[in-house]
């Protein structure tokens, strides 16, 4: 038969597990990709895709130095927050690293060029707080 003290410690451990799990769940994970094409020095196409991660990302390496903090203004939708701070977010993405692919074709001295900059689909941890949102890349 279990003693009362043992029951108490068992309940405490259950509570702590539930609490830690709920804290972990408050930070959601998002998949973000970004790509834009420049043709003959003119921006041709730009795509920014944001989606909730359906499956948990690998959290082994988080780079807190590379975090971005944005004001949320009471909004909980990441896409809306990013669209309100587009320039900041795109500068941040550039800092993280962009893959560049450039092709140039000259036929009979007439030149045409295409440059594509891509951020491949990456996982980000997003913490929603009262006044700001913290975005941290997971690698």
């Amino acid at each position: 038969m279990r003693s009362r003290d043992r029951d108490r410690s068992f309940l405490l451990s259950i509570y702590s597990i539930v609490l830690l799990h709920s804290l972990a769940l408050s930070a959601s994970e998002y998949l973000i990709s970004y790509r834009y094409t420049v043709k003959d020095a003119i921006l041709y196409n730009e795509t920014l895709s944001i989606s909730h991660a359906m499956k948990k990302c690998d959290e082994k390496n988080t780079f807190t130095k590379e975090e971005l903090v944005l004001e949320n203004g009471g909004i909980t939708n990441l896409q809306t927050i990013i669209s309100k701070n587009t320039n900041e977010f795109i500068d941040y993405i550039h800092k993280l690293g962009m893959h560049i692919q450039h092709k140039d074709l000259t036929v009979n001295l007439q030149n045409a060029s295409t440059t594509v900059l891509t951020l491949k689909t990456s996982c980000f941890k997003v913490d929603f707080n009262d006044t700001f949102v913290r975005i941290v890349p997971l690698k």
Partner: protein
Amino acid sequence: MKYALLFIVLIGVYSLFAGNANKEKYENSQVSNEDTQTAISPSQTDAEEKVLTENKTIRISAVGQGVAPVNTISPAQAYALAKRAAIADAYRIIAEKVKGVRVDGQDLVKNMMVQRSTVRTSVQAMIKNANIVETNFKDGLCEVEIEIVLSYSQFIQ
């Protein structure tokens, strides 16, 4: 006879002076060559200093240019779009400097005449931590200066 002797002496004196003058001219040209060599040498040493070695970093900068599209709804949009294009161009220049360019050329010659001349260039790279140093926007043309600091260990990866 006297005049003939005097004439010969004069020719001798003239040739002597002319020889000295040529010698001086030759020496001067030698000196000027040396000067140009010494003038070239500092740039050569600069080029040598730019070699990336262990425990050293190199700062690489590039100026990219971008143009705003014709159908923009406001000057602000034109600026934003031109800036984006300029950033891509600057990234391309940095990638070309660091990684090099692949060049393919093809010329079609028919009846001793060039029918078609084609040059294809391409570059692929991954660029991280690039900083925008300066941005200028004038007459629809945006110029962005970007720099990266490259270390030996990063380059080896």
